[in-house]
Structure formats: structure tokens, C-alpha cells
């Protein structure tokens, strides 16, 4: 698809409007201000290959045969958006046609999986009904553009004509025109993207319908996918630092826990240590016994922790909608660190145990 964040998407400028001075996620607070004329004008700017306006159509339900599911909205694109490699099956929808493309999650919503050629009945927000033919099923349920956010929920895609119904009287032409909250301005290539971004903002601020339609406290935002990726990277870096911090704290707490258990275990067994030394156990024998115990504790803890980590990671990524990747090298690191922590934390109590004077230990009650 042309909205890919990397590769082809490196030529994209994502345009929307936002309340002045806010730095929310893409599309946050966007108003429907970009008219069809604006889209055409943007298309004519130097270095612009294509402009895809984006909006959403409010729905209340989708029905397939006798099976009805609730769905709040469909995403609409005003130009061809999906490429054939984005589709598992079928083709992209055409503008002006009663056609739809579903993501796999949406196709699986119904008791009988929907496939290409089936007809769905959409119930619009205001109660009107529309019949659309499924012409394509997407390859993945991941986000199809930067405005969708993460998450793999069910999504229905429609052509803006006829399903995007937000219209205004365009100040330029005086005609009723569709007005979109967002658009992708696609440059001829990644090298042109910064110039296109500048020209887009200049045009929007100075000459567009959008400039007159925009609320007083709002401004235009034009962000390249590169900038967007940087933002995402920043967030991920912060998240990674946070998780690492939590892991380090857990390790420290775990080490203290092991040391404490070992201390208690040594104290509880003072008498047994005395007996062992009285029948010929050397300091090294005793040290070895307790070290083995600490290591076993560390290994068991690390393995258990790793399993819990895999589980939590799986649930967490399912919840946020990110792909689940098992970081085997980190699992190995976790086990090794667990064992090391066991040894280090067990060293002091073990050394204490080994030094115990057998007479004192035997007298210990």
C-alpha cells in the first residue's frame, strides 16, 4: 500500500489539522477542512505524484446474510490506495463503485467467513442501508495508514465516492464539495519529500479552501513518515528504557531475595552444618553445598521468570497489536544473569555457613 511507513511510504507526507500547539498522535483533533478542490490543487504542486484524501464513514452495523455485527466506522480513501501485493485475495475498490475491501479480522467477524464476491449490507449511522460487494481481502490486519494506530481490530475500507458524505460549500468554487480531515500527499520520490512538505504547507496556509475553513485555534500539520517513525522510535526508546529499568530493579530485588532465603536457610541449618563439620565436612564442602543451592534457586527463578516473561510479552503485544517476537538471546541473557545473581547472592551466606565453628553450631538450638 502507498501508506507503508518505510519503503514506498518514504515519499509520503501525512497532512491533517490539529489544535494549535498540540503534539498528539497523527490525526488527533483533525477537522474536515480539505476540500476536493484542495486535493486537486495539491496534486498539481511540483514534485507531487498523487494525493489520497482520507476520511471515515460512521456506521452502526454490518450484515452478512443473517449475521449482523456492530461496527462504528469504515475508513474511506478518495483515490486508489491498495496495491495488489497488499491483498491476499481480489483487487482494490474503484471510486464510485459499491465495493469494499476488508482486513482479515473483519472477514472473520462473521460466523461464515466472508470472501471475495460476497455482498455485505452496511447500516449507516443514520439508519440508511447500503449494499457493498467485497472485492478484496487484505493480507494483514495491521495498520494500513499512520492514522489508524496499532491494533489488529476489524476494519472495513470503502471508496470515498460514494461513502464519504461530509460536504461543505467550498469557499473557492462556491460548490458543495467533500471535505476530508486528512490526506496523504505522495511525492515523486523520497528525495522530493521535504520540498513537497514545504510546498504543501505553503499552499494550505496561503491559498487553500482549508485555510478559510480551519477553526481559529487550529493549524496544519504536515509530517513525513520519516518524522513519524522518529516519533515512534522515541516512544519505543522510552518504553525500552523503562522496561530495562524495571528489569534491573527486579534483578536487584531478586538478588536480595535469594540472599535472604539463603541466610535464613543457613541459620535454620546451623546445627546441621555443625554436625556435618563435626563428621569431617571441610569449609569447602559446606560452601559448595550452599552455592549449589543458590545456583539451583537462581536457575529455577530465571527459567520461571523467562516463561512468565514470554507469556506477559505475548499478552502485551496482543493487547497493543504489535507483532510478537520471542527474543531468544534475551532469554539466554536472563537465565545467565539469574544464575549469576544466585551465585553472587548466595556467596555471602554460603561463606558464613562454611566458617561456622562446629562447636558453636552444635550448641545452637
Amino acid at each position, binding site marked *: 500500500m502507498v501508506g507503508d511507513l518505510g519503503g514506498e511510504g518514504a515519499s509520503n507526507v501525512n497532512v491533517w489539522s490539529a489544535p494549535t500547539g498540540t503534539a498528539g498522535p497523527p490525526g488527533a483533533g483533525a477537522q474536515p477542512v480539505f476540500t476536493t478542490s484542495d486535493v486537486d490543487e495539491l496534486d498539481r504542486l511540483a514534485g507531487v505524484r498523487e494525493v489520497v484524501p482520507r476520511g471515515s464513514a460512521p456506521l452502526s452495523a454490518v450484515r452478512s446474510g443473517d449475521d449482523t455485527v456492530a461496527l462504528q466506522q469504515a475508513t474511506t480513501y478518495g483515490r486508489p490506495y491498495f496495491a495488489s501485493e497488499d491483498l491476499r485475495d481480489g483487487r482494490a475498490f474503484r471510486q464510485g463503485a459499491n465495493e469494499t475491501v476488508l482486513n482479515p479480522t473483519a472477514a472473520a467477524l462473521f460466523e461464515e467467513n466472508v470472501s471475495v464476491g460476497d455482498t455485505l449490507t452496511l447500516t449507516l449511522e443514520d439508519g440508511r442501508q447500503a449494499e457493498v460487494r467485497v472485492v478484496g481481502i487484505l493480507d494483514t490486519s495491521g495498520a494500513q495508514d499512520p492514522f489508524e494506530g496499532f491494533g489488529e481490530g476489524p476494519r472495513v475500507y470503502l471508496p470515498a465516492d460514494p461513502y464519504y458524505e461530509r460536504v461543505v460549500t467550498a469557499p473557492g468554487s462556491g460548490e458543495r464539495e467533500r471535505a476530508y480531515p486528512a490526506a496523504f500527499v505522495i511525492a515523486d520520490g523520497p528525495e522530493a519529500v521535504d520540498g513537497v512538505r514545504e510546498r504543501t504547507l505553503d499552499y494550505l496556509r496561503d491559498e487553500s479552501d482549508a485555510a478559510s475553513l480551519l477553526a481559529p485555534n487550529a493549524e496544519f500539520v504536515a509530517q513525513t513518515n520519516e518524522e513519524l517513525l522518529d516519533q515512534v522510535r522515541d516512544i519505543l526508546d522510552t518504553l525500552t528504557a523503562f522496561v530495562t529499568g524495571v528489569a534491573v530493579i527486579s534483578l536487584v530485588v531478586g538478588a536480595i531475595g535469594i540472599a535472604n532465603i539463603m541466610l535464613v536457610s543457613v541459620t535454620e541449618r546451623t546445627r546441621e552444618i*555443625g*554436625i556435618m563439620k563435626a563428621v569431617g565436612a*571441610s569449609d569447602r564442602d559446606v560452601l559448595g553445598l550452599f552455592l549449589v543451592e543458590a545456583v539451583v534457586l537462581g536457575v529455577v527463578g530465571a527459567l520461571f521468570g523467562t516463561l512468565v516473561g514470554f507469556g506477559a510479552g505475548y499478552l502485551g503485544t496482543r493487547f497493543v497489536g504489535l507483532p510478537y517476537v520471542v527474543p531468544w538471546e534475551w532469554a539466554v541473557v536472563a537465565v545467565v544473569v539469574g544464575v549469576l545473581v544466585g551465585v553472587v547472592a548466595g556467596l555471602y551466606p554460603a561463606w558464613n555457613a562454611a566458617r561456622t565453628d562446629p562447636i558453636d553450631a552444635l550448641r545452637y538450638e
Partner: protein
Amino acid sequence: MTAVPEASVESAVSLQAVRKRYDRGEPVFALDGVTLDLPRGSYTAVMGPSGSGKSTLMNLVGLLDTPTDGRVVVDGRDVATLSGADRTALRGEAVGFVFQTFNLMPRLTALDNVALPMVFAGVARANREARATALLGGVGLGDRLDHLPNELSGGQRQRVAIARALANDPTILLADEPTGNLDSKTSADVLALFDELNAEGNTVLLVTHERDVAEHAERIVHILDGRLERVEELDTVSHI
């Protein structure tokens, strides 16, 4: 300090002017100049009132403790010249200690308790188990191998403790009031076992409060306030 006689090569244990001081508030001499010689193969009983230093003496002979002053020679080795690890090794090999309070490992079976000293002496598992089984058979506990200490009677526990003391085939057998907790029948069995071990050539040192127990020995050493009060030679022939 006065010259002390050289330890005889014949001695299993030799104490020369041994003192043991404890510093708890007032310094206490638990042993205050004890010179004593245990010939190899001898059988000696130690008697004395409570607090007179009997257990302190046993701990020194058993290499569990070191003297404040004087010399302790065990099996020809001067304890003062031994490192902690060497002392531990000698204790494991040469000395068998039977404690008044048994001191069995509560979570180990009778068999494992008896095998324990052999673990630290580096005996292979199969050999340990065979010997432990034989030793327990020898003290009449062949049918109690898998019992934990708390599943055994007092007398049985004492016999496990004796079997354990014999595990590494020690030349010196120390027993601190081994019959203190036993009824007269079990006492007699345990004492008979000691007589037998002594007859096989082991050196036996035994602490007791009871005169008739002490009379199993060849001689009785009387201790009072950390000093040797007198040594009483017994006519062992008449005893038998």
C-alpha cells in the same frame, strides 16, 4: 612454663599441660593444666561433676576445638601445627565422636546419616552404602536403614550415632555420656559394643556420671574444676 614430657609414639592421644580459657565476662578456665596420655588400644573413662570440663576435654581430643595453652597430639600429629582443613580431615579419618545429644541429621535416613562422614572422606557411593549397611547391621539396626531419626527410639538413635562414629574406621572413639539417655538394657548393649570395639584395638575415651558405666574401662580419670584430680587404675580382669 615447665618442661612437658614428649608424647609417646605409642599414644593415641596425648595432652600436655592443656588449658582452655573462655572469656565470657570473667575469664573461666574450663581446663586448667591437664596432662593425660591415652595409649593405643586403651579404654579410659572420664568422671567429674557438671561443669568440671569433661566436654571441653572431649572437644579438644576430638579436634573440634583448639587449646588456649599446652599441646594436644592426636594420632601422632600436633594439633597446633595443623591447618583448619587438615584438622577437619584428621577429625574425619582418625576420630569417631558419639555425642550426648546424638546430633543426627534430622532429614537424613539412618543409612544416609551413617554414610555422611564417608561422603566427606571421598568414599564412592556404592562402597559407602555397603559399609553403612554393614555398620547398622552391626549395631542391630539392619531393619531400620530407611528410618529418619524421629522415627527411631532414643537407644536406636544412639546406636545410629555410634555406627556413624565408626564409619571411617577411626582409631579413636570418643563418647560423651553415650548412655545418659538410655535405659539399663540399651545401656548394656551400647557398652557391650564399646567393649567389643576396644577389644578390636580401638582407643576408647568415654565420659560418664555413672560409676558402673565407668567400670567398663581400664582406668577412670577424675576431673574437678578443670584439673585432673586423680587417675584410678581398674583391675579389668576382675570386671570380666
